[in-house]
């Protein structure tokens, strides 16, 4: 399946959770990253239970610091 991450098309083997996607993409310090899925900010507590699907638009958002939900 294909999704968009930060505007770039990325091929994935299949559906996976946001947590798995962060691991798959080798995101450093994933606990510091905020994730937007199809325009909505995901609460950190839902990363394990939210699946990304074909056609989804995902943004990994970094800004120095954190303190985000």
């Amino acid at each position: 399946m294909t999704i968009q991450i930060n505007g770039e098309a990325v091929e994935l083997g299949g559906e996976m959770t946001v947590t798995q996607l962060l691991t798959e993409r080798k995101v450093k310090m994933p606990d510091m990253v905020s994730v937007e899925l199809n325009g909505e900010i995901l609460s950190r507590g839902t990363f394990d239970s939210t699946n990304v699907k074909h056609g989804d638009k995902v943004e990994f958002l970094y800004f120095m610091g954190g303190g985000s939900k």
Partner: protein
Amino acid sequence: MTMHVDTKLLHGGYAPEETTGATALPVFQSTSFAYESAEELEAVFAGRDAGFVYSRINNPTLDRFERRMTVLEDGLASVSCASGMAAISTTVLALAGAGDEILSGNSIFGGTYSLFAHTLARYGITTRFVETTDVDAYRQAINDKTKLIFVETIGNPKLDVPDIAAIAGVAKEHGIVLAVDNTVTTPVLCRPKALGADIVIHSTSKYINGHGNAIGGVIVDCGTFDWRSPRYAHLKSFYERVRHFAFAASLRNRVHRDLGCCFSPFNAFLMSIGMESLAVRMERHCSNARRVAELLVADKRVAQARYPGLRGHADYEIADRQFAGRYGALLTFRLGTKERCFRFINALQRAQNLANLGDAKTLVIHPASTFCRDATEKECRAMGVSDDLVRFSIGIEHVDDILEDIEQALSKMEKGESR
């Protein structure tokens, strides 16, 4: 699982630390954070990777404290500051520049009043002060230059209570950010986001700390405002990069970073310990204050006892609705003259005479000679301050002991004794 605020204070936004299992917040007392390669540090500075850099900008201890505050206020992101005043200054400077205006209730804390009326005015930011509880006055004072509406949940020391939901309605009509200072009510009594606030500010030195041992502040972005608004065109580049986090990023990566008003990791540790008992403390603060207010309002030696939980208070109904039947722990009353106030304060045996509020201990102060001493007569009137006014921040001692202390001090004051 959903959590009540009492539980969020203990578990929200923090779990035992990953590498050691430490249940108390670890203090990362380190200025900087090292990377193995220049490429890695470049990626963090460029915003391509997450990471800690320098404790003026970010720090793991501060990050955990900020997350706890974000959860408590049901927000999007938080930025901690060196003090509550630093949090207010940073918020204004992130939203307004020379030639812009902000709109504020006129009964706000004297320190904030001074910042708005004097300091920011020197840099071209004009504050229009309106009657705090007059919702229509806010609507009338808005113009194209207005960048922020600022209110406190309870005016200090006037103890008036603005209708936050109604003021939020005005802010939304005009697409203006509403910031609410929730210091004296805390997330236990009031949830400004649920009333329509876009930003919540705390001086965490008060009830969140609760023990008078550290200064701090925090800004919480509720995540409700659309930062693409042309009124805030200066945030456009931040929006393009981090979307909904535009305001938080503009604080972290620009104004807060440049001003250098960073929070101390050790103070964040103290605040994190303090906040865990906040719900229990607030229950006792509020019940004690209500009992003291009920007795003082009936005492003939005292005039005009003010407390938002008294049915005779002009804003009682708003306070009742906004704070779910609890009304904070600040109360004021008049004793006729400054001399009687000083005799009363000097005669108190346990209440401590100092410039603070929200400590576990009962605190007392004479506002006119202390934190309002630079205000003009007109400004004092707007803040509800007169020369014969005393303010109490009621603590969590046994209420009978607080009442006994007040009774003996009133008695000595009447006899002309002071100690």
